[in-house]
């Protein structure tokens, strides 16, 4: 946890993560998501995907883990906006990154991105964090 205010231009230490089939199963289970593209290889292929797909909300959760774990508990995520640009499959490493673009004592704005190990941009967006009172 950090108590300092990250200045504009700060790059948060990236979060690297490799989703697994087991993780996708547990994410589907806890969110009660029966969509077969996330756990059924044959069905995912039938729909034209290269394999079962990492959930868009799991991509977002990993990006938000980067923000909350790097900023620490003195900050709370207030606003999030992101677009999915590329799907990914288990076994492919995802790299979450964030850069501070605005910074005041009570508010930090970050540009966030997620790339896969092949260099594809999977997710891009903005997160606003506010200092908890």
């Amino acid at each position, binding site marked *: 946890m950090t108590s300092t205010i990250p200045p504009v231009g700060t790059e948060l230490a990236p979060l690297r993560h490799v989703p697994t089939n087991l993780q996708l199963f547990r994410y589907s289970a806890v*969110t009660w998501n029966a*969509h077969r*593209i996330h756990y059924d290889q044959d069905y995912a292929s039938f729909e*034209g995907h290269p394999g079962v797909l990492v959930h868009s909300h799991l991509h977002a959760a990993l990006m938000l883990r980067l923000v909350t774990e790097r900023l620490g508990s003195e900050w709370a*995520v207030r606003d999030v906006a992101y677009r999915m640009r590329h799907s990914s499959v288990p076994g492919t490493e995802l790299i979450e990154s964030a850069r501070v673009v605005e910074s005041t004592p009570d508010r930090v704005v970050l540009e966030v991105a997620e790339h896969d190990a092949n260099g594809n941009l999977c997710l891009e967006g903005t997160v606003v964090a506010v200092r908890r009172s």
Partner: protein
Amino acid sequence: MSDAVHPLLQRYYELARERIGRRSWHDRGVVDARTIARYAVAIGSSDQIHFDPEHARAAGYEDVVAPPNFLASIFDWTEGQPEDRLNPDGTDADAERSGELSGLRGMGAGEEMEILQPLVAGTHVIEEVELVDVVMKHGSRGYSVFVTQQHTFSSGAGDVLNINRRTVVVRAPHEEER
């Protein structure tokens, strides 16, 4: 790949457009600490504010607190349909992409989320859902329909916790792209 709009996608687009502005309210029940902890495990988090009430209270929360996109991520808040009533892709047969439209493919495209209060264990959650936009677009993979719903989550006491606008992209059946 044909450059024409697939008839199923066109039909879905027309039906979805008719529902713009419709709202519904749902009692989602009480979110418990176990579910929050399981969600945290599923995303790979080990932050103790999601698991340990004492740790969460020391950090200023009333109880264990959910990761930021927990509320937005729950795909189905109900007990779910029996398997023989699900669409071929596993989604709810009562949803809009059912019956003649069940061959359409959908996936998450993005989201805008405003988190007004943290979700802590024991909160009774009420959800309001409104279909706010349905747009047909043409891109490198042919035509797609982008459907945006606004989900407003409130506590049982009436405090707004989280507002998110979630977009799903719907595409024609895969074989039709060949």
